[in-house]
């Protein structure tokens, strides 16, 4: 019998089986593939594929992790939140952090932004009043080629 896998993503529960048949999740599948290709949650981006750039960050039990180097089969029972899950599921109202990014133009091309917002959320989950140094350190695993980091730090600071 195939192994069952229950994923909790953005408050929804999804049940899969593990295997190589159509519709099953292979053992080798990474979380970013499952989120984007199976659940259609394309807000999470895939870039470097080795955990260095932070574009694929999602919250796992409240902490940012790299979904590109996480095996989906190892996510059983864990609470996963993607960028799509930050807004209010009923009203669609954005998270204050997202609003702050918008009002501070804390992005240019926007490709890395979901990962940065998730990483910022992770900082705030652990420490609601981080110093600038703590914000910088917390975001040090998120790369941005458009140099949005100056605005990002302003945005995060604005909601403290």
């Amino acid at each position, binding site marked *: 019998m195939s192994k069952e896998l229950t994923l909790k993503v953005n408050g929804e529960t999804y049940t899969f089986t593990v295997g190589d048949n159509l519709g099953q999740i292979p053992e080798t599948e990474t979380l970013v593939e499952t989120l984007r290709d199976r659940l259609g949650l394309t807000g999470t981006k895939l870039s470097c594929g080795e955990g260095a750039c932070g574009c694929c960050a999602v919250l796992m039990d409240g902490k*940012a*992790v790299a979904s590109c180097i996480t095996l989906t089969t190892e996510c059983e029972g864990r609470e996963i939140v993607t960028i799509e899950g930050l807004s209010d599921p009923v009203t669609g109202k954005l998270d204050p952090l997202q609003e702050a990014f918008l009002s501070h133009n804390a992005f240019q091309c926007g490709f890395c932004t979901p990962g940065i917002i998730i990483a910022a959320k992770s900082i705030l989950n652990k420490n609601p009043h981080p110093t600038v140094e703590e914000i910088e350190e917390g975001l*040090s*695993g*998120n790369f941005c080629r458009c140099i949005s980091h100056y605005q990002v730090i302003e945005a995060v600071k604005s909601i403290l």
Partner: protein
Amino acid sequence: MRKFDHINAESYEEASSALRSYKKAEPIAGGTDLIGTLKKQILPDAPEAVVNLKTIKDASYIRDNGNTVSIGAMTKLCDIEDSDFLKTEEKAVWDAARSIASPIIRNEATIGGNICQDVRCWYYRYPHAIGGRLMCARKGGDECYAIKGRNQYHSIMGGMNTGKNACSTECPAGTDIPGYMARIREDDWDGAAEIIMRVNPMPMLTSRVCPHTCQTQCNQCEDGDCINIHAVERALGDYILENADKFYQKPATETGKKVGIVGAGPAGLTAAYYLRKEGHTVTVYEKMEEAGGVLMYGIPEYRLPKHYVRDLVHAIENMGVNFCFNTEVGKDIKIEEIKEANDTVFLDTGAWKQPILGIDGEHLTHFGLNFLVEVKAFMNRQIGKNVLVCGGGNVAMDVALTAVRLGAQKVKLVCLEQRAEMPASAEEIARAEEEGVEIYNGWGLGRVISAEDGSVTGLEAKRCTSVFDEAGHFSPVYDENDKEVFESDCIILATGQRVDLDFLGEKYKEELKSARGLIEIGEHKDTREPGVYAGGDAASGPSVAIKAIRDGGIAARHMSEYMGYPVKPAPARGGFLKHDPERIFVTESMKEKDTPVAERSLENEDSTSLTREEAKLEAGRCMNCGCYSVNASDMSPVLVAFDAEIKTTEHTFGADQFFSNMHSVEILEPGEIVTEITVPKMEGYETGYLKMRLRESIDFAVTSLAYAYKEENGVLADVRLAAGGIAPVPVRFSEAEAFLKGKAKTAENVDQAAEIALKDAQPLKENNYKIQEVKVQFRKAFGV
């Protein structure tokens, strides 16, 4: 990623047994290194299964034991970073954890995974999808691309032996060629001699006769001349013989065990040397007047002057080995008597018999090996004017050249093989041609043509269209319609030699014989008769001397063990591999001086040995191939500096032992898993971990330094220092620690300690800057 099974383990026991149930399986702790490795397929073997350790219960904890702190292997780095307890009690561990990669990685990565991660090197980790992975030395290939390539982030302390040097692997005896080259570079000729003599007690002979295929595998071949290995070996061999008293010593104690050796060829002499060295009483029975076998009788003087053989035999005799010359086993003494008188027996009777080809007029030909044995007799007679040598191996080349030098007017050589297939070494073929031997490839023997008076006039040869079948077995095919007559008044057959086992007598011959008519031997060179061992051509078929030497060495080890005296293995090569960073770029080798063709003779050696100075220069070109990667675990220098303990499901290792391998997990048995790390608290010490890198996150350490020191009465009472990122393993600076103890913490002392720490450093072309970085970290660590 290639498909794998995935198992969630609930306990370490379950994980261990799951790992053991596959041929290749990997545990996944945090997965941040492993998944990247699998995605890029940097290794040729993919695991069949991945066993998840994160599901193991109670494997993540930080426990205060009073003087030490224990951290469960599955503790995440973010939990170490968030622990105020560790921040005060284990500051260096806390520093190191915070310095690793980025917060996103630390939220999943574990301390157990961190200390088990693989080395960093961009050649090693080159992604398979982009033009194919690089099979570097670390991966089971034979070349380190970093030595001469781009190496700004590589080791500055030297490389590490991967146990797979191409040259050593090619050598039948497995000679540690880079090992003795390194000693020669240091001018430590005794050390070099000790290394080569672990497997070969006669380098002064092998260097002169071996086809030295090791050289064809040398990684320098790609950029120019290969290392002239045999020439260096020859200089070393000459040194050994000049100092025979030092290297062929009588054993300190006698075991009283007796060994009989039949045949004093290279295998027999090798066995005699090693067995006598262990203190056994050794008697060698030799049919001929002198010892050496083919080396004495089958190889011409100009290639191997006999005084070298005699001097070697004399040295072995001085060790106390008894030789019974002119004693033919089977005639003068029975094998049963030898067996009766000894505890073990070694048979090395060689391959001396002429094979019968079955061609018309074969009785009118000469047998090549006999020709070489009796060359002196030939010298007194007039050799034929027009000599025809048949065969394509080194014996045939020796015969042809000897005939030339005996004064034959014309020497032709015919052989079955095409030029590229000839078994003789390219150098021997070139030498023969240089001296006027005409080589005709692709001809098989038809019949010998003789005049009415019985004198030979020529050989009728038939075209050989192929020598080997599709499976590569010897199976010549002839075109009977394509014939040619080679005129000759003297035909010498050098088409192989056979093994003659008649000396064993009926009973033993039947018992010991293999299907091929050789002596059947096992892995230990043991025959079917307990206590009787065999080697050399008699057991392996006609081959090169170095193979016989290997046989003799292996047999000696097992014979000694059989008699109750196991031989202690040679100590493993310690320390980092060093090379000469400038001379490795020299593309031209030092060569032995050849005598001009006109001056060559039968009596004098054709070439002269390199001087020791020249040999040392040539050894300087050896890259000492190994792995020059760096260890990337930030935790490892801290654990090494503080003498932490690493507990696994099977053992408890000291950190220095655990991190002594290039990839720490190589020390583990199959299925063995790290479970806990215990670190002393270092109370009263100033501790920390410094990491130099290019970007303030993600990057691995370019150099790093873990430190702890305690000041008492204005001087340093104790100091601990270990560096990361500068070698394939973390490096403890014990000498620098000892230097600083009892001294004041001044900039001058700290600088001097850094000099001491790095005195053995040997940066590669592009990473000299790392030396300066380590020195700066020394200053930062002590706040001076």
